[in-house]
């Protein structure tokens, strides 16, 4: 772990691994989309619109997974002061917000033909909306506090406070009477979904996770470069200060 704390080493690692990761992402997503449109069967009740599920469900899984990644990074910041943990948190927040947004929008588009409504205030949709608001709050916090170290610690605290929402989202369909369907994949007793639908779902989930991994690594890399730029601009300003400042003797 300590070896990876060196930003330069991390940058070299990312530069070497990223093309392969992008390749794997594109392959998996292409396979997943192929399976979604050409292999998976249409639902007997919902017809072709069920194919939204293959985007909606991976996006939902990823929105919670990314928050977990952010929580672990937050622990890295607060407990171990790992230098890359700050950048990892900061890079993950917009990605999490994006996937949550995709989840909410695709769910809404699916709900209109299925349930007859764009939105309903049941436990699952409300708690995911709260997750989206927490992501937006974190992004706002990152953008408002200028000093990167302070911002990282403040965001870490807020992330840890908000992690209580994740089990609420997961179990909301079990604890409350909701319009959203109950858990079908990750539940006691195994998946309740047929393999012809389960496999495309899992492939899309893996593809989406790889996409997140690529974007996240790029985000962390960009954040490291951004901080170097910030440091360099400070040093340049300081150097210019020495040049422009009149000599003390010349005043008086």
């Amino acid at each position: 772990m300590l070896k990876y704390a060196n930003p330069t080493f991390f940058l070299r690692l990312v530069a070497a691994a990223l093309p392969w990761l992008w390749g794997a992402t594109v392959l998996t997503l292409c396979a997943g989309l192929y399976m979604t449109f050409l292999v998976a069967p249409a639902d007997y009740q919902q017809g072709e619109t069920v194919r939204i599920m293959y985007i909606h469900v991976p996006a939902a899984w990823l929105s919670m997974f990314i928050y977990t990644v952010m929580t672990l990074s937050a622990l890295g910041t607060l407990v171990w002061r790992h230098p890359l943990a700050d950048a990892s948190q900061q890079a993950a927040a917009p990605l999490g917000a994006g996937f949550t947004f995709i989840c909410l929008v695709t769910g809404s588009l699916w709900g209109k033909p299925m349930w007859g409504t764009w939105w309903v205030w049941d436990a699952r949709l409300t708690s995911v909306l709260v997750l989206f608001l927490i992501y937006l709050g974190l992004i706002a916090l990152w953008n408002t506090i200028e000093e990167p170290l302070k911002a990282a610690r403040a965001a870490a605290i807020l992330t840890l406070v908000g992690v209580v929402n994740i089990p609420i989202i997961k179990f909301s369909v079990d604890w409350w009477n909701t319009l959203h369907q109950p858990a079908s994949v990750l539940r006691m007793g195994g998946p309740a979904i047929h393999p012809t639908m389960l496999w495309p779902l899992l492939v899309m989930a893996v593809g989406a996770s790889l996409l997140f991994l690529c974007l996240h690594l790029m985000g962390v890399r960009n954040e490291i470069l951004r901080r170097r730029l910030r440091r360099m601009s400070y040093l340049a300003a300081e150097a210019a200060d020495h040049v422009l400042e009149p000599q003390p003797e010349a005043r008086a």
Partner: protein
Amino acid sequence: MKAFAALFSRELRLANRAGGGGAMGVVFFLILVTIVPFAIGPDLNLLARIGPAILWIAALLSTLLGLDRLFLSDHEDGSLDLLEMADTPLEVVVLVKCLAHWAVTGLPLVLAAPLFGLMLALEGDALWGVTASLLAGTPALTFIGAIGAALTVSLRRGGLLMAILVLPFTVPVLIFGVSAAAAASGGTVPFLTPFLILCALSLASMALAPFAAAAALRSGG
């Protein structure tokens, strides 16, 4: 214990001297309760049905606006640094400050709620139900809000950001508060169920929020 009492009385005295804290919160509460019928229309039946919700939202927003003064003045004159360096743990300091803050801003809202509830055509059981739910729930609002106040204490115009950070976490308090208030006037849900959950939320936030807020104060200000 002496430190506890000393800090508590300091907060109360400062709030009285600075003036307006509790009273302004109640006035803002009144203004919100006044504005809503202008937007919704004066239909008393409708107002009575959503009265508890209006009172709860108004209490939430009044608390939110009052949270600015929880840490800001201490941060500006340096007392917060002194409190951080004191022997008393920062978590206890935050606990006492929040309790005093609730006594000055939250409690007046609770006392004013029956009066404003009458303006919204609430009566009898509904009135006492909403007052009881506010009494049990406003401490949770203050303590959860303290986390946001601590996170944004060093920002100059952090008011809106604090609201964005705090509001998602106050949603459960709002849900159970309105549920308890509505259950008091009859219906299928017994009053005690959401009321006890509301008490639990308050007690849990009293126990846990000081830790988060103290961590935020240490890392930020």
